[in-house]
């Protein structure tokens, strides 16, 4: 993959990557750290991507692995802010409040459940969610039922 192709890929999937990073981070700095770390991991791994899985599935897998495995307390590296005029934490319009509610709900889930629910919210079928997270499609369905129950009990 050439750098131009990589840049194009990042531009196409920026929303997906950013959403996952946002849902796993606790502040804007952490989103930036995770986002940049994910991009570096994607860049490092793009040569080994053989096209056996869908490109979007591979991007999800790398992003989720980066977010789940990142121990932000131990490893906090200074980064240059992203060139992006958005802060989903501080905005106060109606849409942003809805997004903040989504963030609160997702963030209360355990990291693995968070990954599953994010993939489901992105509209991925059960078998693809299973392929990305390493569990069976049936297991995905069972987990989603539990997540649904958990969300029902949650107070906003």
């Amino acid at each position: 993959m050439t750098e131009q192709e990589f840049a194009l890929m990042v531009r196409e999937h920026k929303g997906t990557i950013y959403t996952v990073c946002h849902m796993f981070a606790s502040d804007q700095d952490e989103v930036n750290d995770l986002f940049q770390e994910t991009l570096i991991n994607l860049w490092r791994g793009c040569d080994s991507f053989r096209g056996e899985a869908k490109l979007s599935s591979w991007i999800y897998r790398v992003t989720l692995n980066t977010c789940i495995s990142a121990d932000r307390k131990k490893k906090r590296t200074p980064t240059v802010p992203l060139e992006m005029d958005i802060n989903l934490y501080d905005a106060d319009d109606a849409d942003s409040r809805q997004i903040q509610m989504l963030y609160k709900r997702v963030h209360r889930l355990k990291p693995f459940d968070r990954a599953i629910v994010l993939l489901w919210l992105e509209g991925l079928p059960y078998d693809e969610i299973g392929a990305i997270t390493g569990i069976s499609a049936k297991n995905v369905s069972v987990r989603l039922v539990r997540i649904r129950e958990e969300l029902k009990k949650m107070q906003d």
Partner: protein
Amino acid sequence: MDRLDEMKQQMELLRGKLDKQEIISENLIRHVVKQKVHSLQREAAFKGGLSLISIPYCYWALTSVGISPLFTAVTVVFIAVALYYTWYAHRGLRAKEIASAPLCEVARRTARLRLFYARWLRFSIPFLFVWMAWFVWEIMSTVANESQRTGMLCGAAVGLVIGGALGVYSYRRTQRQAREIIGQIKDLGDDFEQNKDFLHE
């Protein structure tokens, strides 16, 4: 409405917001640039090491066959100048500093490197032609043994072809990598656009 379905709508709002945003990670570009600068550095270090070894070797080889001291001195000085020039061209372009240096400055130094390499070629190619002709003349006038003379000329010709091919390869590679570094930084946009005049030097 089920909470998950509600979240799906909220997700749509988030996606809509993000789709309007242009994300360029400066840190990623720095990472890529750093890798390339590191590769340029490694290559320069290899060439420098080779030049350092070739200075005493050339001195020994040329004096041992009775080549004139002037020719030997010119050859050794040329290699020493090439060594110094390589160091000078790469000065200020260190992979370690990429993380903190302004990217515009990195692009400026890379453009300077390209320019220096191109200038060196303009000097070194005519010089090598003259050097080769002089070398042939030196061999013809100092080496009396016919077979030894033929052997040395053949050796020099083979060396010239291999050296020339490696030189062209290395030059093109360095130019390409430097071009890619500048291209990467160019992607960052406005700040670069305002300061890119140096690329046309």
